[in-house]
């Protein structure tokens, strides 16, 4: 074999691979070109709800809200189960975009960093998307364009403050508590934790956070970490703050096994069905003293309806005020004696969606629009 052929052979191979790759990439129409924001016809639309997994009650409720709304609007629905993986989430979304119909999408992102890829892909495909809960701070809907209709969430600061207050009042405004945040790099968790500290620093100086161990929204990990903290702090622990109800389940089990369930108070976020059952059963002699009320079906229905209105041209995102592009929706502080006031909403999801369609996404009780993001995490003086 001559030197000439040795040198040109790899070059030819590389050139061929480059050409083939270029053809493949240009053939992927879902990820090239600029998205259109002209009003779309309903028959060209498909609704998409993307959730982190399908077994967490909140995400299961996201799916429920999407199903009810899709049925009301008579639009087909696709469900994306991300299985906890950013790669799975993005791959499945791209596959749906490649099918050809224009998407009206709600995404509960696995991680903040997923949002830019998703919104850019949706934009390129001419669809419309709202992102809930997590996105990078520097990614603004107004900067991306009309296809990124809005970023929406409930205030984490308010959630943390509400639950910290309920817990502090229940333990007599003094004593030690432990905190179990969610995933460390989750904005949702970070803002709830920040809200907790802000409330304690401002109003409950005699309540001390003995320890804080991130437990990844995982009941088993929360159980294990709680066992360690019980061994570490013993009866100094008067209260337990968890960033969501899933972790509260694990924490309560740990304290129950230690014979401390009736001596310690618990607060959390979400008022999951399991938490409702524990409150109604007066578990631990009223161990749970504070919760927040918001619902997954409300979030997904609001997000999808917002995107739908933009898709059919009923709203022009570029003319919306800032709070309707980066939105904070109301969250309710709930104590056990008041839970029935909020649970009534769960008895008629279809009725609530009807009200949403009538009133619009920003003015529907019990979760009207209350402010604009992004939430600024206050700095603490330690």
């Amino acid at each position, binding site marked *: 074999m001559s030197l000439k052929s040795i040198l040109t052979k790899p070059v030819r191979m590389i050139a061929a691979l480059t050409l083939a790759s270029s053809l493949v990439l240009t053939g992927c129409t879902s990820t090239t070109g600029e998205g259109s924001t002209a009003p779309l016809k309903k028959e060209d639309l498909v609704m998409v709800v993307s959730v982190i997994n399908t*077994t967490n*009650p909140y995400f299961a409720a996201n799916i429920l809200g999407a199903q009810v709304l899709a049925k009301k609007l008579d639009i087909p629905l696709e469900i994306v189960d991300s299985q906890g993986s950013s790669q799975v989430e993005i791959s499945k979304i791209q596959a749906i975009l490649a099918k050809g119909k224009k998407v009206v999408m709600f995404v509960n992102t696995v991680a903040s960093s997923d949002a830019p890829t998703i919104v850019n892909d949706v934009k390129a495909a001419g669809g419309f998307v709202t992102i809930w809960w997590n996105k990078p701070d520097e990614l603004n809907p107004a900067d991306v364009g009309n296809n990124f209709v809005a970023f929406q969430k409930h205030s984490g600061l308010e959630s943390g403050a509400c639950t910290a207050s309920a817990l502090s009042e229940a333990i007599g405004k003094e004593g030690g508590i432990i905190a179990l945040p969610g995933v460390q790099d989750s904005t949702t968790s970070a803002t709830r934790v920040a809200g907790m500290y802000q409330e304690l620093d401002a109003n409950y100086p005699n309540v001390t956070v003995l320890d804080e161990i*991130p437990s990844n929204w*995982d009941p088993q990990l929360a159980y294990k970490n709680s066992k360690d903290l*019980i061994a*570490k702090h013993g009866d100094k622990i008067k209260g337990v703050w968890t960033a969501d109800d899933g972790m509260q*389940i694990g924490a309560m*089990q740990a304290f129950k*096994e230690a014979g401390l369930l009736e001596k310690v108070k618990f607060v959390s976020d979400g008022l999951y069905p399991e938490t409702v*059952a524990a409150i109604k059963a007066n578990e631990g002699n009223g161990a749970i003293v504070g919760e927040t009320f918001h619902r997954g079906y409300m979030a997904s229905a609001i997000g999808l309806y917002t995107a739908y209105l933009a898709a059919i041209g009923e709203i022009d995102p570029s003319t919306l005020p800032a709070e309707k592009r980066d939105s904070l929706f109301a969250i309710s502080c709930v104590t056990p004696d008041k839970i029935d006031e909020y649970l009534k909403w769960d008895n008629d999801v279809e009725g609530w969606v009807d009200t949403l369609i009538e009133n619009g996404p920003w003015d529907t009780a019990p979760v009207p629009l209350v402010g604009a993001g992004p939430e600024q995490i206050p700095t603490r003086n330690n």
Partner: protein
Amino acid sequence: MSSTATNDKPRNRVTAGQPNNVIAGFIKRNVEVISISASILVLATIFSILNPRFATIENLQNLLNQAGLPLIIAVGATFVILIGSIDLSVEGVMSASGMAFVLMSANSRGGTDFGFWAYVVAIGLAATLGFFSGVLFTKVKVPSFIVTLGMWYVGLGIATVLFGTDTMPFLTNDDLSTWASQQNLGMPNNFLLGLLVAILGALLLRFTSFGRVTLAVGNNEEIARGNGLKVNRNKVTIFVLAGAISGIAGIVATIQLGAVNPTIAAGNLFIALPAVVIGGTSLAGGKGSMLGTVLGVILLTTLTNGLTLADVSPNFKTAVSGAILILAIVITAWSQRDRLRISK
């Protein structure tokens, strides 16, 4: 195929008046166990200094409680690694068996309480999944890494389907949901169960022909097959056994939490596998012990518990755990570094 280089040095002999030879021989035969035990003692001493609450009875019982579940899993993993294979399906199998167990027991979703049969079905389901792993591995010749990775997702899928769209099912029997951490002989029940499983595993390895065949297969599969040993049958049996043990672990995990969701087993595999390796079981197969596995689990549990009590920031905990883990593996494997071992 793994092989162990022969040792040309004459074996140590016990001779009258030379106790040093006896001690040296003992140390040489048990160097991994001694290394791990020393590592545990060193860690325990350091953590006790950093936080005196580490050495309290309460925390030691907590430590054993946390060791119970990984110990059960690690026993099953030890069997598989002894034949030079690996079982990644543990978490999926645990999820499937745990879900089946709770749904067939008295739980918050209602339904019939099948009592004893809940255990049978749960463990049977897990063993069946192990059987399929073994058959695919031996008959279809799919590498164990791949087939058990697939079985992980199969198990997870079964758990997800069983979970459905209803709320998380809780065990409604309070005695059952607190059984794991109840104390007997001063130790939590789940650790005692793990110890029992480990002892049974050790007896199986040491005193049965099945155990001897297992070690022979792991040491040199071709020679074992050439000597008429039923290698494939042994491998399938190992995977069935490992599956059944994962099923037991799934039941314990749900009893521990008092509830179940499809991700109940998340994170357990990557505690159990390092524990087995630290315990001296060779990834190439043919060498290992249940005692080493038990000590490996205790070492890792001591590490994570101690770091929490020592106020190590969560931001650094994972990195610190990893660094200490590497050090422990190096110390444990130091005596093996000169032997020629070819991985399968």
